[in-house]
């Protein structure tokens, strides 16, 4: 699903440049539940941004669903994001003046679906995250856990190939964190590829495969005990 070969990325800082990713090789197959672990500054967010087509890379190859990603302009990137990717952010990133239902339906709007149909589908996904009763509430009326569940519903609504979660539990307490991770696990069980970025060991431990990143290189890539046992 995601294949990365010798990926490099640097950011210019004044006259110098900061080399953030120093040759990453990573292959994530369809249906995997992977976490990228690393402390801040390890390059994990940069990796997610590149994988999520929110940012370009300098060197190396990146294949998304077998398609080589290169020379993307904003328009093409937008189409690919809409088609292949679902995002879950640490700070939820819901649009404050839209209701939960409208937030979930937004990606379908950019897909070009008509209003009636997209609201119907959005409602199905809200139901899936058990927030059907909150459909007409604004984000400000929801708790953190509820907001993140709305965000997850929004990430899933286009039926993407990969769900990218950037510190999805970073702003939540541990109980809510667990329920959010359960939700992601459930999605993965249905066959969705889920890609989580975190700096918390406990969260990473809930996934099937942990890739550890340090100073822009992968230092370990292991299947968790849980997964190993299951196999």
């Amino acid at each position, binding site marked *: 699903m995601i294949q990365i070969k010798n990926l490099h990325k640097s950011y210019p800082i004044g006259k110098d440049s900061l080399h953030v990713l120093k040759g990453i090789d990573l292959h994530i197959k369809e249906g995997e539940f992977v976490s990228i672990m690393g402390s801040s500054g390890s390059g994990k967010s940069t990796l997610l*941004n590149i994988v*999520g087509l*929110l*940012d370009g890379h300098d060197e190396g190859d990146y294949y998304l669903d077998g398609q080589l990603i290169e020379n993307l302009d*904003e*328009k093409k990137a*937008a*189409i690919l*994001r*809409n*088609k292949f990717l679902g*995002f879950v*952010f640490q700070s939820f*990133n*819901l*649009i404050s*003046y*839209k209701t939960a239902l409208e937030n979930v339906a*937004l*990606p379908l*709007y*950019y*897909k070009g679906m*008509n*209003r009636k149909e997209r609201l119907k589908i959005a409602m199905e996904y809200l139901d899936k995250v058990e927030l059907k009763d909150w459909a007409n509430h604004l984000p400000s009326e929801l708790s953190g856990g509820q907001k993140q569940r709305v965000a997850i519903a*929004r990430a899933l609504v*286009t039926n993407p190939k990969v769900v990218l979660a950037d510190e999805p539990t970073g702003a939540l307490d541990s109980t809510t964190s667990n329920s959010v991770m359960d939700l992601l696990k459930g999605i993965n069980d249905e066959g969705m590829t889920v890609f989580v970025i975190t700096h918390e060991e406990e969260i990473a431990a809930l996934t099937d495969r942990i890739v550890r990143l340090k100073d822009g290189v992968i230092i370990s890539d292991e299947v968790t005990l849980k997964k190993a046992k299951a196999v």
Partner: protein
Amino acid sequence: MFDLDRWREIFQSINKNRLRSVMSGFTVAFAILLFTLLFGVVNGLSNSFKGAFVDDAQNVMFVRVWKTSKPYKGMQKDRRIQLKNEDLDFVKNTYEDKIQHLTARVYKNVSISYKTKQDNYSLRAVHPDHQFLEKTIMDEGRYINERDIRNKSKVLVIGRLVKEDIFGEKPALGKRVNVSGISYKIVGIFSDAGGDNEERLTYMPITTAQMLYGNNDYISQINIGYNPKLSLNEAVAFGNKIERDLRKKLDIHPDDQSALSVRNMAELNKNVGVLMLTLYFIVLFIGSGTLIAGIIGISNIMIFVIKERTKEFGIRKALGAQPASIIGMVVQESVLITTIAGYLGLSLGTYILSLIGDSWEKDYFIKDPSVSQGIVIGATIVLITSGLIAGYVPAKRAAKIKPIEALRAD
């Protein structure tokens, strides 16, 4: 362009951010309101000026005489100047090619009586050309003609109100009336756009008046209708030349305005034209200034709005919004606000102007202030364009920001 979902997005965005929408709208509405009012008032002034001159022909000058105010060629000041038939002939022969109509006037106050009715009226004894210079409209009968002049006929052309006073509803044409003891036949009844005073006048052939009242060749005033082919400047020069020549002929000091003066409508028209042009320029300057201020205002607000919404745009982009859709959304919102607000300002302006209507005519010399269709359309185009620009420039920049930077914004 008509995308229901897009409009829904825009209305939601405007509705959820009412304050900023109203704020940006207000700037534009106010600018357009001021613009409309200014233009309307100047149009009203212009209407008044035009109205003031409909009475008489535009290409006229009047030669008038009084007493000298300066001694000249050994003669004392305070000498009374009298125009005579020879002066009229002099004007006629000297400037033949530059003159379209020419008439002299003799003023008299007379008492007109018919059966038991009697009243006093102003009388003008004139040449036939007077009709064209005064724009006299014949309701019945005819005006003074050349034969009347030759025969010194005892005929009268009376104003509509004179006829009403003396004859009421009964026919007056062909009747004989008594003017200060002499019997005259009424050959015509006229009306005049100049108002009641002009319709309470009576005309008779100038030769008749000269013979019967004093038996001399005196005239009170010469009215000249210059050739309309003359440009304003040529007409002004022509007036000055007549003034100089007549002063010379009548032995008047060249600068003696009091003894002989030529009141030239060309000069007046020229001055009014220059005044109106200046006013229009001032209004155009102030008006476009206000409009530009309004446009800058809305641009500033749009920049602020877009900064505020950068994160939202980042989210939208992450969810699959293409840059064009973001730009389109912002521009459409901006155009919508400017157009609606502009139209509110415009309507309010025209409404206020219509309320003023003619009520300011007496006190402020402003008649029927209004803005023309062209101005309205022009202002609307300016509004939509400014809305486009005000939205497009910052939106383009916002759409260029990478989604990840946009998401980081707060």
